[in-house]
């Protein structure tokens, strides 16, 4: 199907190579983008290990594990879709892509449940943030030490030595953990939403039989993007949920 070769390319092979390389370079920029957040995570985890452990204990490992499995499954569907498109089975590719989209939506749904839980427990950074050290996670229940961050939210508060109890300080550090949690998983979820839309468009084209052995570039490059978003989660999951 040479009809797909744009005027400025010599042949389909050159065009495929260019599109593929373009997506790899785009993914390199994404690595640097997420890499900045991973760098911030690393720096703060090194500075405040105790708070990060405490924050991590309030995350639901079961939900995280299910989501990891869901995403890995979606990547399998995408790989199958690329294979189907490359072997002239455009409709089958559409089916696999729909499978991947469903998995993506399930992931976002579970993520939404987790976010709702954080809102319910006032774990969202900001004026209403609260963290009860002893009642969280595996520790014994003891609510007496709770102090709302509101009371200490005076300018430069933390630098005024002697006015902060260890628990109040810890609560602020945990708020920092949750700031990173929301920044990183929120950005990841945004990429998931974009990915779902992207796969939706490609799935529609595939259903119409647009792809074949000689032209399946959109399936290939959107698949690359999806795998990348998956891999970001594969790093986020242990950093946020598992390392305690």
């Amino acid at each position: 199907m040479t009809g797909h070769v744009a005027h400025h390319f010599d042949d389909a092979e050159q065009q495929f190579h260019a599109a593929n390389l373009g997506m790899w370079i785009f993914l390199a920029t994404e690595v640097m983008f997420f890499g900045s957040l991973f760098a911030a995570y690393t720096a703060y985890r090194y500075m405040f290990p105790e708070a990060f452990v405490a924050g991590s204990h309030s995350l639901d490992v079961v939900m995280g594990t299910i989501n990891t499995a869901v995403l890995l499954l979606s990547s399998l569907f995408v790989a199958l879709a690329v294979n189907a498109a490359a072997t002239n089975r455009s409709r089958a590719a559409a089916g696999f892509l729909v499978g991947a989209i469903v998995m993506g939506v399930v992931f976002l749904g579970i993520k939404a449940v987790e976010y709702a839980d954080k809102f319910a427990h006032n774990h969202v950074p900001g004026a209403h943030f609260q963290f009860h050290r002893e009642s969280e996670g595996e520790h014994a229940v003891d609510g007496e030490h709770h102090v709302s961050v509101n009371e200490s939210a005076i300018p430069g508060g933390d630098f005024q030595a002697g006015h902060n109890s260890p628990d109040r300080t810890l609560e602020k550090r945990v708020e920092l953990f949750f700031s990173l949690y929301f920044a990183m998983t929120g950005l990841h979820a945004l990429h998931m939403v974009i990915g779902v839309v992207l796969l939706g468009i490609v799935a529609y084209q595939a259903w119409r039989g647009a792809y074949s052995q000689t032209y399946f570039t959109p399936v290939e490059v959107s698949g690359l993007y999806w795998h990348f978003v998956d891999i970001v989660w594969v790093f986020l999951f242990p950093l946020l949920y598992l390392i305690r």
Partner: protein
Amino acid sequence: MTTELLAPPERNYLSAGYTARSWLLTVDHKRIAILYMVSITLFFFVGGAAAVLFRLELMTPEGDLVISETYNKLFTLHGIVMIFLFLIPAVPAVLGNFLVPLMIGARDLAFPRINLLSWYLFMLGGALVMWSTFVGGVDTGWTFYTPYSSTYANTNVMLAALGAFVTGFSSILTGLNFIVTVHTMRAPGLRWFRLPLFIWAHYATSLIMILGTPVVAAAIFLVALERGLGIGIFDPKLGGDPLLFQHLFWFYSHPAVYIMVLPSMGVVSEIIACFSRKRIFGYRFVAMSSMAIAVIGFFVWGHHMFVSGQSVYAGLVFSFLSMLVAIPSAIKVFNWTATMHKGHVWLSTPMLYALGFIGLFTMGGLTGLFLATVAVDVHVHDTYFVVAHFHYIMVGGSVMGYLGGLHFWWPKITGRMYPEWWGRFSAVLVFFGFNLTFFPQFVVGYLGMPRRYHTYPEEFQIYNVMSTAGASILGVAYLIPLIYFIWSLKYGPRATANPWDARGLEWEAASPPITQNFETTPIVTTDAYPYAEDEQRTEETLLV
């Protein structure tokens, strides 16, 4: 030569359409280059106007023209506009966009529609920055340092930061397009070490664009989260570290200096070879020095934070790494000089700009070594010494290169010659005005005048008066080319395909080129710059 009788090619990329639609929806890399050229010229004069206002304020030690707050907004506007809306896109998005496909014998960039998208993103970012100015301005400085930008500033930080964020994506898309184009679309026979040095420079620049820009985007994203949603990544109240912002910011913003100057170095290599009538001396070293600057440039950012509370050991390592950048930079300067040695040097307008570049860049680079030395930097940090240093690189280097390139390829871009006498006159005037503006700032900075204040002790007035006088000359020197370039569009003599008798595939295309660039794809059989060493240049073959 009977230039007046030459007719332009009947169909060229300029005559392909005259409607607004044919420009605003074009996917032709040459037309997109023109869109960029018009846009950045507007932004250049906006940024320049801000500079005129604060230079007038600095004529006197007292704050008598504007109040401190307005002064802060003026230098912030100047910085944001000149860096994000002029210097970063100047050479790559205008000359690079126009020339990269032509120089490698391609019909367009690999992704023409993404190229157009990058211009729209650029304009959106520019509009946001202008909007932030019209609703009251921003006073954080172009660096958006936290916690001031995230917590305390009561100005339109979000709008301006969003503008910088969006133009970043435009820059990423340009870099991505260049890399893919150079990898996949070179003409038959055009091996990597036959590429013009302009291409090497743009390839190196593109690497920085795609690897550095996302990091500053993330930093701005986190500031926006903190300011807008209270998600406090850098908030000291939570134990957040403002130094982390500086790390992320400078990880991009120091290499960004190389985004500004590397493409100009590519321009200078082309001009020096052409007007010395010689193959560039040490071609491979010049090519690889661009790559070396791009790579080493990623490991020097900490020299902006010597006095910010960074550890002494980190400071020493960054000091050493910063000095390493001087090596590839010096390789370029020495090789350009060696190229001119025993060449048939013709002091045309582009050549004057290129020579100006070498001199001013050398000054800027050597004073950079002062700043890379921790002990000296403690003394001159945040003084006018720093201001002078980076203007020698960014104005003395980048802008000279851009103007030189604009003159060199003007006949190719427009099919018209600019007036040579006025060109030389303004090139000399730029050099003179520039030095009068910024050399006194080295002195006054060394004497201890801090940057970013609108009042200063009386003993510094003489230097500031010199600086303001120089800036006025510089302003006039920049207006002259604007006027004669526009004049030349209608009245300039018609240009031949190769008015400088230069080498390179772009000179084999018509002036102005046809939409597809070449009638047939060229086949390359020689290395770059095949200027005959013994070639006798005769003035008659060149349009004077």
